[in-house]
């Protein structure tokens, strides 16, 4: 029990460090790499505000995916929106006091969890049954879906079948903030849930999950269509002009 608590404490410190440093590294890499040419996919907004609105539609509604493939959109959006609600609901383990909006969202978080698992299942079925999607899938594409489904199912089982001591969990995580390791309940489902979550955090910056920050840096989506009005030039391209 003490060993498990210590192991999980270390695991989460490690996972958090990997997640944060990995993401910070990737984001600053994206931010520092210049985009030498104007390449928004047109028709594109001509102003900064228009670009923000376009980006919001992509992030919230998955607009391009909607135009591209309705089934993937339905399952993909279900999964991500579910994930979003679950995340909000989970905040109660990590903040004290729990903000009022987070209290309100608690029941929806459960539906979110269900939607998330259904969405993931739909996406996974596509990977087997649509020959084009099967062709492009690597083992890692299946594993990440398996990982997320397992996290979701273990969570739902805790909610509906084998209850766990959420107060103790919260104490454990709040304790980690102060480097004060409090005992973690040793229910197998919870340990599985947490182990998989740590794995998710660790693979995040080294996998296709980089699509989340990547979207914001995609030049075909985040550039304004104003090349005739404003001269756009990257530092390395300006150097060519001096030669």
């Amino acid at each position, binding site marked *: 029990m003490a060993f498990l608590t210590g192991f999980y404490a270390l695991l989460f410190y490690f996972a958090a460090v990997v997640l944060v440093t990995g993401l910070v590294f990737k984001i600053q890499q994206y931010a520092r790499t210049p985009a030498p040419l104007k390449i928004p*996919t047109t028709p594109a907004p*001509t102003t900064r505000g228009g670009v923000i609105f376009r980006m919001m539609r992509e992030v919230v509604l998955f607009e391009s995916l909607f135009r591209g493939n309705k089934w993937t959109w339905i399952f993909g959006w279900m999964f991500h929106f579910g994930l979003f609600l679950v995340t909000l609901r989970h905040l109660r383990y990590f903040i004290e006091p729990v903000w009022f909006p987070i209290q309100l969202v608690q029941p929806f978080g459960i539906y979110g969890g269900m939607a998330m698992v259904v969405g993931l299942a739909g996406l996974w079925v596509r990977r087997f049954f649509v020959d084009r999607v099967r062709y492009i899938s690597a083992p890692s594409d299946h594993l990440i879906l398996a990982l997320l489904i397992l996290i979701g199912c273990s969570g739902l089982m805790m909610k509906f079948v084998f209850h766990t001591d959420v107060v103790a969990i919260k104490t454990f995580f709040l304790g980690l903030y102060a480097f004060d390791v409090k005992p973690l309940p040793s229910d197998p489902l919870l340990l599985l849930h947490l182990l998989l979550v740590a794995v998710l955090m660790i693979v995040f910056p080294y996998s296709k999950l980089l699509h989340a920050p990547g979207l914001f840096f995609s030049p075909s989506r985040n550039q304004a269509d104003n090349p005739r009005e404003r001269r756009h030039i990257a530092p390395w391209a300006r150097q060519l002009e001096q030669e």
Partner: protein
Amino acid sequence: MAKATFEVPALTQYTEIPAVTPDAMAHSAPFVAKADFQKPLGFPGGLVDDWQTTAIAKMRELLGRYRSLQVYLDSCVKCGACTDKCHYYLGTKDPKNMPVGRQDLMRKVYRRYFTLAGRFFPKLVGAEDFTKEVLDDWYSYYHQCSQCRRCSVFCPYGIDTAEISMAAREIMDSIGVGQKYCNEIIGKVYKIGNNLGLPGPALEDTLEGLEEDVYDETGVKVRYPIDEEGAEILLVTPSADFFAEPHVDGLIGYGKVFHEAGVTWTLSSHASEAANFGMFIGSYANMRRVAQRIREAAIQLKVKRIVFGECGHAWRVAYSFLNTLAGPWDFLDPRYPVPQHICEFTFDLIQQGRLTFDKSENDDKVLTYHDSCNVARASRMGDTPGGQFEIPRAIIRATCNHFYDMDEDTIRDRTFCCGGGGGLLTDDLMELRVKGAKPRLDALNNVMQEKGVTHMAAICAICKSQFTKVLPYYGMEMDQIVSLHQLVSNAIVLTGQGDGDLEDEDETDEAA
């Protein structure tokens, strides 16, 4: 028409998504550039000895220079939304022609050499060493992408396979594996001034011939000037406009429009080509060098404005990149955007009521309009997004009585490429070109059956050449493809036309 050595697909009412057929197009590859065509562009003459290391080093350099490449290689989640969007996949069934399949040819190398997961668990994430087999695949399939950007419209992250194809071609050029067609043409532009290698005197002859033809037909002296210093407008147009059908009918149309506008204009023998093949091979340096000719010509001829003729990829480089590559344009008249598209120019005059048309001149045709891929998805016309769709259609409506659009899923930003863009318009890729045209021709055939459409108008030299060549394979006529300004040319009523008088505007052109 040469007999096809491959099976021409049968047109279907709606383009069906084919079942994945691996390696269906693995045999397709364009001729490799010999040393003579590589050297003038600054590339090694043949495959260098340590090509693998050199290629990886080049890839590292490009990853640091192009955010698009870095972000796109990381971000794809293999959602599959792009898999049925490429005309080459739809026409050839080869899964490496699915946009993500094409990207993965580079992504597997990227993962192997540049990511932790690929270094330690290559099998798990589909990473692979850069072997000769992989390089051969690159050469084959990165020359089966017309850089049309249709995939980027539907990808949730806007991943543009064109960017990846360009980077791949740049990497291959850097190790001495170039494509003959593109690199030979860029060499011609440096040496002679245009893609077709037409020297100045030949252009002058052609233009004189055009003046005579137009005079014979209309009785009006419309001028087609070249290298006239002090003209207001520099027209930069694809060299196919100088002689090939139906391109040249478009050029005749531009001249008539300028004539009616009462402006002076000139072509330039130094910049006698609008297309910029530097983009196709992903080479910023070559693209810039080709673009600089236009700046030099504008300065030398002391013009006030620059207008581009009908050409798709050229308009992308002109609209989106010219300011970057050859700007700033502060020495030109600030009242006009630089550059302008000939369609913007004509449309402005139509709106001001300054052009008179006799639409019945086009009554022998029922038209549809092909949105050229790079105009549609990589540029704009006018001041509002989507002007690139509305302005050409407005011109057709002003000049023709019978016009029908093709299926909504195949026009505007969802338009299909003609199948010959991006440096693939060469006879050594005929099979690819014919098969890649299928989705566009399915839609065309559909409006031909249902609406009685007889002709398709386009505003791109590549589209026009490609369709002229490919339509007969599908049992259609090569002259069913027309230039947009050919329609303008047919319908426009020139001032003084018919009464045989010479125009006084003509004299003003003698300023030079």
